[in-house]
């Protein structure tokens, strides 16, 4: 369903428009913040509008790559500029473009220093993240994957909180260390196959031991990124110190890159190793869901609480992806596993909306009171009724209230987990209790009750800009919660294709 020649360049436009636009925003200079902001909004909104064909012209009947672009990049090395999307990447790119606009609006008032650089950093990040999701060449993927760290490093370091330097260097080095092991794996795959084409790697037969090492290499990169227990410790620090926009992008998009990596690399390239080591990932996922859930319960800092809640929710993603093998062993079919993988994908999109919304919510309070500590609040509902409405709704969604998107993904994964192992499902289902506990307790302490102090007494309710942000996200959460069908349809063919692929051994 390729209509017109523009689709042949669409992904490139979506990647490079924000990146090149960022140069323009930079040149607006620190003295003209209004111009920089306007330009950034124009570019991000333009990118979003241009990117809509990814949804409307997307052919849901095929698992093949669409909007493909292929041209040589480094010939001696057979590296190609190879872009394309399937049912896994399209929703995540749409999510990225959506948040690309939101963070520009979110930073409108709260950023005062070097506004042009702030906006430019987010535009560059947007372009690079779209690149990550659409790269089909292993090295191109790696370039986007790593380059993305630079703007995020600067965003946390320049506009972050008091311990920003510690947090941002920890973030950078953690992710960098994880990904260099993947790089060695990628080079090894290139030497074995003579190509960097990820889709060709999917078909490449590999000995089991090789697969195991490659799997661990990928795991090092993606487990840090998503992040999984026990390499999650950078995330709370990064979130706490990052400015609101940084937290939003980090939670809403960057974590998804870890999940996407499992889908694009680990599962299809090393299916046998994934099947053999699925206990490892499932075990760590369940620890994340339960243990990190408890950790979230104990937090004093709102952002930290949401960060831990993110880790716990991302546990569902890895769980949903890796129970496929047990289900196949139990039932001999993949139809049950499809539910798990789809659930993982829905969970990624949904968590993008919800965590983004929650960080924006905290950002609204932080902009007014300059504290993220739960104890500094109480009874916010009395002075900010509209804000309280949104905040409670988002927290409900975070705890998996039916009707919100948070419910759909978790429910699909839990349902699917029953076919793998009762205890997987049981432990995963604990999140419904834990999630509700930490989310609603947070609501109780911050939103409800008597007005805690004079700062809360003097709070102004959200303005129209903030209402627009939170309202848009609320609508998105409800939309996915009540009518997830278009989203599921989008990925169905790709999920089936992936599952058919991974149950076949490719051991040499």
């Amino acid at each position, binding site marked *: 369903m390729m209509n017109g020649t523009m689709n042949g360049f669409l992904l490139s436009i979506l990647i490079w428009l924000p990146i090149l636009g960022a140069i323009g925003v*930079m040149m607006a200079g*620190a003295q003209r913040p209004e111009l920089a902001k306007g330009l950034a909004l124009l570019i991000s909104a333009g990118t979003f509008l241009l990117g809509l064909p990814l949804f409307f012209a997307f052919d849901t009947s095929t698992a093949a790559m669409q909007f493909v672009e292929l041209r*040589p*990049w*480094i*010939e*001696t*090395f057979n590296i190609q500029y190879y872009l394309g999307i399937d049912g896994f990447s399209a929703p995540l790119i749409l999510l990225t473009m959506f948040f690309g606009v939101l963070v520009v609006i979110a930073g409108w008032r709260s950023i005062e220093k*070097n506004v042009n*650089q702030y906006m430019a950093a987010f535009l560059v990040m947007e372009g690079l993240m779209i690149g990550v999701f659409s790269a089909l060449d292993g*090295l191109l993927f*790696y*370039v986007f994957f*790593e*380059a993305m*760290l*630079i703007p995020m*490093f*600067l965003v946390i*370091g*320049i506009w972050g909180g008091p311990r*920003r*330097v510690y947090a*941002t*260097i920890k973030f*950078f*080095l953690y992710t*960098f*260390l994880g990904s*260099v*092991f993947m*790089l*060695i794996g990628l*080079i*090894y795959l*290139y*030497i074995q196959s003579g190509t960097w084409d990820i889709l060709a790697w999917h078909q490449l037969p590999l000995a089991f031991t090789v697969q195991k090492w490659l799997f661990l290499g990928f795991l090092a990169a993606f487990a840090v990124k998503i992040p999984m227990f026990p390499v999650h410790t950078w995330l709370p620090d990064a979130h706490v110190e990052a400015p609101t926009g940084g937290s939003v992008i980090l939670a809403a998009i960057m974590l998804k890159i870890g999940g996407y990596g499992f889908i694009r690399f680990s599962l299809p390239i090393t299916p046998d190793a994934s099947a053999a080591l699925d206990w490892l990932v499932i075990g760590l996922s369940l620890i994340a869901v339960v243990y990190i859930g408890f950790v979230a319960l104990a937090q004093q800092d709102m952002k930290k609480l949401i960060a831990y809640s993110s880790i716990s929710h991302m546990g569902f993603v890895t769980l949903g992806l890796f129970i496929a093998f047990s289900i196949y062993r139990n039932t001999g079919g993949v139809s049950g596993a499809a539910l798990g993988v789809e659930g993982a994908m829905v969970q990624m999109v949904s968590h993008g909306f919800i965590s983004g919304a929650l960080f924006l919510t905290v950002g609204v309070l932080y902009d007014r009171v300059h504290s993220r500590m739960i104890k500094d609040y109480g009874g916010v509902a009395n002075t900010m009724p509209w804000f309280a409405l949104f905040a409670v709704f988002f927290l409900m969604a975070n705890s998996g209230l039916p009707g919100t998107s948070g419910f759909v993904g978790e429910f699909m994964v839990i349902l699917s987990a029953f076919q793998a192992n009762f205890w997987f499902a049981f432990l995963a289902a604990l999140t419904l209790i834990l999630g509700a506990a930490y989310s609603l307790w947070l609501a109780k302490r911050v939103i409800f009750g008597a007005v805690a102090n004079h700062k809360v007494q003097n709070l102004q309710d959200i303005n129209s800009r903030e209402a627009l942000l939170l309202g848009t996200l609320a609508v998105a959460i409800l939309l996915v919660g009540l009518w997830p069908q278009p989203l599921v349809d989008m990925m169905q063919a790709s999920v089936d294709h992936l599952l058919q692929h991974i149950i076949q051994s490719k051991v040499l």
Partner: protein
Amino acid sequence: MNGAQMLLAAPEFWVLVMACTIMIVDLFLREQRRGIIHMLAMVTVIFAAIITLRGDYLVDGVQSVTAFKGSFIRDPMGDVLKVFSFVIMALIFTYSKFYLRTFKMFRADFFTLSLFALLGVMLLISANSMLMIYLGLELISLSVYALVAFDRDSGRGSEAAMKYFVLGSMASGILLFGMSMIYGATGSLILPDIAGAIRLQGTDDILLIFGLVFVVVGIAFKFGVVPFHMWIPDVYEGAPPAVTLFISSVPKLAAFAMAYRFLSSGLGDLHVHWQGMLATLAVLSIILGNLAAIMQTNIKRMLAYSTISHMGFVMLGLIPGTAFGFGASMYYVIVYGLMSVAAFGMVILLSARGVEAENLEDFKGLNQRNPFYAAIMGLVLFSMAGVPPMVGFLAKLMVLKAVIDAGLMWLAVIAVVFAVIGAFYYLRVIKYMYFDEAEDETTITAPVDFGAALTLNGIMILGLGIFSSSLITICMASFGL
């Protein structure tokens, strides 16, 4: 000797003639007209590049041509290295002009000595006999000893020059000793003849192996890899930045050429023996260079240890002894040269007000003082750390590929782990530039040509990373790939 052979060495002759010309012209110049010297030096390197590029000495199927009874070789690899030496040299002259003027040291000696050192680099790159290698090496070394002590009122400069001289002479002696053994074992000074002799008589000659060890030591000293690195931090710190610019870049290109010619053209059959030696040197350099750099507070010393670790990476590419590996090393060394001059160019820029910038703290708040130069320094640092899309990443990638190709996975793992550890100290400079408040609020300004050169340098580092195909192809083509 016929004219055609002379023509092969035309770039060398040109640089020699110009270096002498500048020396003489300076005698007749008044103080205010000294600028001419700089212009002459620039003309020298630019024309040298043109002459080198226009040399159509290769007929079909011939990979290289030798001259002067086989002592001198002209081949595509040498040409590429020379052209990049000229490019880097042009940047160095532009950066150092600003420095020399600021510190009132603008004298023709700097340019003459630099050009003689450049001539040494060119000879070393084109050396095809042990004699020529030694000549080139000594020409570089002697010019650089003098350059390090160029600021004659600086005690540290003199001390550094002295240290460098003593250690350098020692290394030259060791190299000569090794050469004499190899000569004794094979009966020739010409590298391909040595290779032929080794092929005939086998590799298990104890004299030959001993000679090899000493030669590797000489090469290692030139690269400055651990444990022959002691001179690097002191010399980098003691020498005026204008000279450090040179030491840290162009001679490394020559060192690569020397290693390649010696180890591959001459002693290629001893690969099993030198492989292990180079692997040890490379691993030690990468480990020590990165760890020691973390502890530095002086920017020049930090960059010195960073050089040591980068040279470890260059060595990594040599280890497999494959054409791809040599190509990767060559690419790495060229890229490193470009990054290094940019970094020291920034150090010079920060010294703009007559106080030499030395400490990492001097980078504090650079983003406020001049966001543009801060961004360029950012590019350089991320490139050195090996973060894509900067060119430093591709250089590391190619070297790693060569190593993994040779089945040396453990080397690749050590290299990447320490590259990540090394990323920390580059990030720390970024931290100073971007995350800290400036103590000194004055804006930073530089002359137009300096700014243009630094911008060009920054664009190269980013541009060669994104539009990377051409330089990689050129480097690989030099080794027939």
